[in-house]
């Protein structure tokens, strides 16, 4: 039984119109999910801040490191302003470059806001497909970058400083964890609500007024070029990830293939233009291109794969 059945009843009672009904139902559902899941993730994170993750990672060997780094990436939020401190903090504490990249890929790609939206709008199967493919892309990209021996493409000053990775952060009490989680949840909600509303709103209009399969002839299963195109369009859209996902969920209904949709969402979250600009401070453009190239190729592969599987 669907736990959101009462919300559905409420939406039916308030609005018989398809678009409006869709809007009310999705908005309430998404905001409930956002509050609950971000809160839970924040509590987990209060036990595992990046500083602690780093201490764990600096003692791991290569492959285990890549896997653990990608898993930790799920609970760590990632805004492009944190890219530099995370990168420097990891590398200077002795975390291998490949492991650091696994983390840098997984952290923005598998974030709690994207997860909620996937879960709420696409269902748990697609959410799971997204998480697992995202983890695999992060792990493999990190392993490849580690193998490439690209240490010379990192700005020299990065390696001139080393730090002790075992930081003692102030211990948090139970109450502080709850307060932290509450503050953080409110902060994120405040940041994303306009995008989510606009995304769901436009999605609802598409849902109600665009004929089904309207987009199939442009971006259906048989249109291979839709995947790379989706990845390219996704690169500059990072800051609006919260609004983009509801929008593409409606587009999927109108005939955009599922693999293409997955590739698009991954590109929106994992490949971010502002992050690349910021990373230029610590690495050569060549390394950023390698990084974007490998991740982009992984995303496209995922897109093609699921266009084949999820017919």
């Amino acid at each position, binding site marked *: 039984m669907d736990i959101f059945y009462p919300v559905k009843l409420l939406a039916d009672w308030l609005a018989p119109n398809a678009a409006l009904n869709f809007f009310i139902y999705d908005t309430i559902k998404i905001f409930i999910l956002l509050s609950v899941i971000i809160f839970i993730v924040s509590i987990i994170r209060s036990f595992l*801040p*990046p*500083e602690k993750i*780093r201490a764990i990672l600096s003692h791991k060997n290569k492959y285990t490191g890549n896997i653990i780094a990608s898993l930790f990436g799920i609970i760590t*939020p990632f*805004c*492009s*302003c*944190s890219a*530099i*401190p*995370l990168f*420097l*903090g*990891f590398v*200077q504490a002795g975390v291998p470059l490949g492991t650091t990249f696994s983390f840098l890929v997984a952290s923005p790609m598998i974030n709690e806001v994207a997860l909620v939206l996937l879960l709420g709008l696409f269902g748990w199967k697609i959410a799971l497909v997204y998480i697992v493919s995202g983890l695999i892309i992060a792990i493999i990209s990190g392993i490849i970058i580690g193998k490439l021996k690209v240490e010379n493409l990192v700005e020299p000053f990065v390696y001139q*400083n080393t*730090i*002790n990775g075992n*930081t*003692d*952060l*102030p211990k948090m009490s139970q109450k502080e964890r709850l*307060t932290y989680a509450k*503050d*953080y949840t409110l*902060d994120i909600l405040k940041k994303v609500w306009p995008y989510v509303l606009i995304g769901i709103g436009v999605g609802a209009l598409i849902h109600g007024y665009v004929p089904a399969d309207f987009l199939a002839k442009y971006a259906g299963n048989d249109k291979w070029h839709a995947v790379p195109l989706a990845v390219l369009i996704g690169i500059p859209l990072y800051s609006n990830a919260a609004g983009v996902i509801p929008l593409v969920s409606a587009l999927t209904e109108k005939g955009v293939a599922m693999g293409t949709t997955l590739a698009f969402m991954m590109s929106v979250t994992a490949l971010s233009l502002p992050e690349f600009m*910021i990373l230029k*401070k610590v690495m050569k453009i060549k390394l950023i291109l390698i990084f974007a190239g490998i991740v982009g190729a992984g995303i496209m592969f995922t897109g093609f794969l699921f266009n084949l599987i999820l017919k």
Partner: protein
Amino acid sequence: MENKIKSIQVLGSGCPSCHKLFELTKQAVKELNLEAEVEYVDDIQKIISMGVMQVPVLAIDGKPVLTGFVPDIEKIKSLLSKGKC
């Protein structure tokens, strides 16, 4: 009986939330009538040396007390008043 706060620093990479924390902290200091100056530091290396990896950071006397998000002004005030005793 009170140890005065000697320095208050907001550390950030220049992102909007870092500036917001800086503004809020300045206001909190003013409302609490503290004498300490609030300093904005955007030297990433300094942040890393503190052992912190998330911005923005609020540090009192060189010790990070808040990392990774912008709280409301009441929280900043309580951190600043806690730092005194």
